[in-house]
């Protein structure tokens, strides 16, 4: 059974040689990031605080456990494809073995999350004073927590397959554990500091340190138990170490025993969800992107309808109509708003971490986050989705006219989004309107740059497959934006420092030139791209 599955995986990998190569590069990069991260803590003036480090590790691991356990509980039986249903469920494999197969899907998510965590090593080191040992403990602890957390969640999902009440009770229990943990942790913090104001005065780091290193965190299911091992090592406390090892081993043994001994019947829901997955794949083949399909799930027909546009311009009005249906206002992109909220949250965090003394550093951090997220939103925008349907190719208008009609449909949402970006930079940097305007103009330019890179990637990278295409177009977009900043940085270095507004204005000007060049290349793209 296992050998047949391994054979299939081996064959799959042989067909996609770039996957193991990319994985190796990613792994090497992660190691490099951990190394540079640990260097950062040694070089910086951050004083190592063991309580803060342990506290931060615990808090991060608890959050990761919450996410992964719920993923398993909500979709434990969902990680199956129709091929799995046809070959594995109908084949001579036990339900328990097949359940393990489903974890393959979540393993990719775990690997990606851990890689992102590794890439954040420097930030974590600067924020919490992590050294190399802390970083390794964080990665290993999270890896184990994710594996066990998902295994437990998906087992419960399968075990209570046809009993919604039981699943609801498990969820209530899960929320209760979290609420109790937060309540008791804050109560203890209050008890030791005496007032809310004293807790506020601790700042984010102090609160994380207080909550993460307190006793409730050590009792927190999975995450706290597993982290006891490192707590024991760090504090040279053999009691914590032994208890941590024993409890973790017991946890592993319990989950293995559950999988081996309990009867699980989840095939029906697995088949239904495999069908859903197959439908989504087919929709994607027909041009409906999965993310878009999710966003479109709740869209309803309103009073508005298609009443404008003639020839190519009907593309613009159709996009407006679709936007209005998705978000009530034609200039609002839901995904863009979500990413702006994330950027704002990140900005708040960086503002606290970096401090009020260096607003420029906060601006840079927020700007990097906003640009990275916009690379995702606009690099894969609606114009690109047009290329998944035959209409844009077939409608009897000039290729450049059709392309411009599609691109111009994104102008209102780009303008709105860029104004938000400008306002955020003004807020976090405590800067004037000039910086806000320069930021907004720069973001408009970069958003169009991302769109054009995405479009040109269809021509250049389409044969490489969807995943590589998305990866390469994103990297290419980021690369060109870095290039846009080079002249501004040179000017800044030569002149001994210029204002942020000037840097952004120069970057916008260079970005506009690059965007213009891309536009020339993309002009007749519709005639050159294939609809396969």
């Amino acid at each position, binding site marked *: 059974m296992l050998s047949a599955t391994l054979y299939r995986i081996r064959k799959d990998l042989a067909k996609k040689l770039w996957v193991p190569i990319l994985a190796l590069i990613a792994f090497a990069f992660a190691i490099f990031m951990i190394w540079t991260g640990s260097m950062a803590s040694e070089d910086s003036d951050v004083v190592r605080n063991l309580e803060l480090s342990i506290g931060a590790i615990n808090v991060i691991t608890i959050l990761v456990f919450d996410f992964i356990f719920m993923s398993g509980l909500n979709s434990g039986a969902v990680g199956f494809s129709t091929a799995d249903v046809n070959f594995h469920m109908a084949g001579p494999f036990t339900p328990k073995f097949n359940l393990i197969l489903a974890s393959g899907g979540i393993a990719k998510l775990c690997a990606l999350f851990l890689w992102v965590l590794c890439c954040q090593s420097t930030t974590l080191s600067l924020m919490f004073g992590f050294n190399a040992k802390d970083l390794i403990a964080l990665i290993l602890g999270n890896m184990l927590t994710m594996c066990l957390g998902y295994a437990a969640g998906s087992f419960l999902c399968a075990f209570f397959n046809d009993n919604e009440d039981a699943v609801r009770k498990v969820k209530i229990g899960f929320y209760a554990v979290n609420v109790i943990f937060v309540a008791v942790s804050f109560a203890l913090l209050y008890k030791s500091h005496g007032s809310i104001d004293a807790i506020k005065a601790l700042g984010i780091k102090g609160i994380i340190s207080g909550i993460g290193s307190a006793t409730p965190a050590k009792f927190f299911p999975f995450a706290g138990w597993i982290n006891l091992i490192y707590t024991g090592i760090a504090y040279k406390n053999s009691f914590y170490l032994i208890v941590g090892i024993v409890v973790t081993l017991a946890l592993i043994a319990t989950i293995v025993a559950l999988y081996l001994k309990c009867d699980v019947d989840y095939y029906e829901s697995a088949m239904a969800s495999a069908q859903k997955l197959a439908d989504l794949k*087919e929709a994607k*083949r*027909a*041009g*409906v992107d999965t993310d*878009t*399909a999710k966003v*479109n799930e709740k*869209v309803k*027909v309103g009073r508005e*309808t*298609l009443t404008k*546009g*003639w*020839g*190519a311009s*009907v*593309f613009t009005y*159709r996009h407006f*109509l*679709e936007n209005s*249906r*998705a978000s009530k206002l034609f200039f609002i992109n839901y995904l863009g708003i979500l990413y702006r909220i994330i950027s704002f949250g990140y900005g708040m965090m960086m503002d606290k971490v970096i401090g009020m003394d260096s607003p420029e550093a906060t601006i840079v951090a927020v700007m990097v986050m906003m640009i990275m997220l916009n690379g995702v939103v606009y690099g894969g925008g609606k114009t690109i989705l047009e290329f*998944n*349907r*035959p*209409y844009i*190719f*077939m*409608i*009897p*208008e*000039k290729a450049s006219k059709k392309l411009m009609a599609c691109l111009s449909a994104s102008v209102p949402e780009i303008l709105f989004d860029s104004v938000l970006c400008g306002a955020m930079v003004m807020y976090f940097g405590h800067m004037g309107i000039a910086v806000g305007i320069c930021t907004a103009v720069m973001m408009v330019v970069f958003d169009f740059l991302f769109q054009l890179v995405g479009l040109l990637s269809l021509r250049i990278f389409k*044969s490489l497959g969807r995943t590589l295409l998305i990866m390469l177009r994103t990297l290419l977009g980021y690369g060109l934006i870095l290039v846009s900043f080079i002249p501004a940085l040179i000017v800044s270095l030569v002149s001994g420092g210029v204002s942020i507004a000037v840097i952004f204005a120069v970057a916008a000007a260079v970005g506009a030139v690059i965007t213009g060049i891309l536009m020339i290349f993309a002009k007749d793209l519709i*005639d*050159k791209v*294939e*609809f*396969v």
Partner: protein
Amino acid sequence: MLTVTNVTKKYKNFLANDNVSFSINDGEVGVLLGPNGAGKSTIIKSINGLLRYSGTIEINGIDNRSIEAKRQIGYVPEIPALYDTLTVAEHLEFIRRAYKVEDVKRADELLERFELLDKKKKMGKELSKGMQQKVSLCCALVHDPSVVIFDEPMVGLDPHAIKELKLLFSELKAEGKTVLISTHMIDTVEDYWDVANIMMGGRIAATKHNHSENSDEKSLDELFFEITEGTTKEA
């Protein structure tokens, strides 16, 4: 009239269409027959200007990639590609406006014909596969094209819609339009085809005309199985 001359299409090292040539006159129904992977969809996409290829394809004597030729083509793709959040009526309105068609009644006539009037306000995502196929058919016809190309049009349709579609083929033929149907189901086209091109391995393996007076000739069925079972023959 549709003329395909020496069209070759390669995907990396795979030759999907190898020097394909055929033509269909006005008022004729041409069929492209062949097993899965024979290259039917590739040539159909090339005719619609969706792929790059070497060779020549002309619609009424005009290069198929020109704007004028595009105006004259109607295409029903194999997999309906509707917009999720556009209603059935809006799909037709989108195509009408895009093709600059002044006649606003035609859309409703098509919807009525394919029993979609009561689904006018349903969104693309809410339709079954068969319904989506019907909308796709209406979209291909709303601008009254002179060359209509169908890629596996019967898939997913209910018996009534199949009957209506067959009637439509006959009407298009009577109106002097050029019709090309790609299928691997011979029995669905046996009543109204004029010229059949049987594809195999990316090539036209045989061409057969329906009005042949030679009674000794093999039937389309016989010819198809002879070719697909290994022997290439000109009919």
